[in-house]
């Protein structure tokens, strides 16, 4: 995820301090991985340098100075361009699982057991996510669903590969 574009997008609704930006980010997108303050300030200074945000005001109290950032017109254009640009789909062509299956067949180990163990591991994670989804809010549900659909796709591949093991063994060990 582009943290810079996400922080810029959050600034579109109005100027905010770095701390508020971090809080808004964590609340909406950082369920598993909250931002470090260092990341926020490093990103903001880069955006500032590139003219995508500007300092809207500085508060100096007892502690360190607190800058309030506002998005510039160039920043708004940049967010728009990022949102309009489709994400490159993950090609999934370098599969560790495929490598393991072939190596199992080459070395005379049980590829079927390997696939079953992997299947069990995938389902275990799907259970955890389903439980989290059941107890969570809409944001949790959507994030977990995204992961669940990907895991389900992996499982379908595992199932298909299990059904084709005999065929694959002939190719791998001619």
């Amino acid at each position, binding site marked *: 995820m582009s943290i810079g574009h996400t922080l810029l997008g959050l600034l579109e609704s109005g100027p905010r301090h770095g701390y508020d930006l971090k809080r808004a980010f964590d609340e909406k997108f950082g369920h598993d991985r909250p931002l470090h303050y260092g990341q926020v300030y490093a990103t903001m200074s880069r955006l500032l340098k590139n003219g995508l945000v500007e300092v809207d005001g500085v508060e100096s109290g007892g502690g360190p100075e607190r800058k309030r950032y506002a998005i510039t017109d160039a920043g708004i254009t940049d967010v728009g361009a990022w949102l309009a640009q489709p994400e490159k789909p993950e090609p999934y062509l370098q599969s560790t699982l495929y490598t393991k299956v072939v190596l199992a067949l080459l070395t005379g180990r049980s590829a079927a057991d390997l696939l*079953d163990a992997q299947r069990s591991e995938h389902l275990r994670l*799907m*259970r955890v996510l389903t439980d989290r989804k059941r107890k969570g809010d809409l944001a949790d549900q959507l994030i977990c669903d995204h992961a*669940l659909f990907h895991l389900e796709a992996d499982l379908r591949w595992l199932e298909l590969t*299990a059904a084709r093991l005999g065929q694959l063994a002939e190719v791998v060990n001619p």
Partner: protein
Amino acid sequence: MTPAGSLLVAQDLHKTYGSTPALDGASFSVHPGEVVAVMGPSGSGKSTLLHCLAGIVTPDAGTITYGGREISAMSDAERSALRRTDFGFVFQFGQLVPELTCLENTALPLRLNGVRRKDAERTAREWLERLEIDGIAAQRPGEVSGGQGQRVAVARALVASPKVVFADEPTGALDSLNGERVMELLTESARSANTAVVLVTHEARVAAYSDRDIVVRDGRARDLEHAV
């Protein structure tokens, strides 16, 4: 997997239809209040396993014990009585009685057990409320959506407080949103009533609502927790 404390245990089941073996040494167990998914490719024997466990089909060989009693040794009448009192069923297409209202469909297992209409319908209404469909109590199955009909089927399966619910592809005819809600309601209701669920499905997302799953492949049931 140890069958100790299990409610329903099947050991080394064999079943052949004509010359086709459907079960070839399948074993299975479920504990009270446990939700177990039975997975496997089409034709692997998972539905046959469910039908044997529920006493609908008699295996050619092997034993099925429910609460310490062997199902295969029971008479047809005893097995029917067991299905009425201790088991509940949900199928892919609700299989509701079209002439009865949703409330009457839900109350049916209680009525068949001799409960008076008024009492049966009061309990049935509570289940419809729990499944968030009390608004369709007076409608007939043909007048409600697929998702609503399937919730009626879930309510009907649970209304007589069974010890085991057998669900065969219960979300197979629903879109994902309705399917997920049905699974949520089925598993939550069953767990809170300490009812075991044997859930046949080929969908991983549905199986993820279970506590445990087994895979049936070529008529053999394999306990995934101990696969390797």
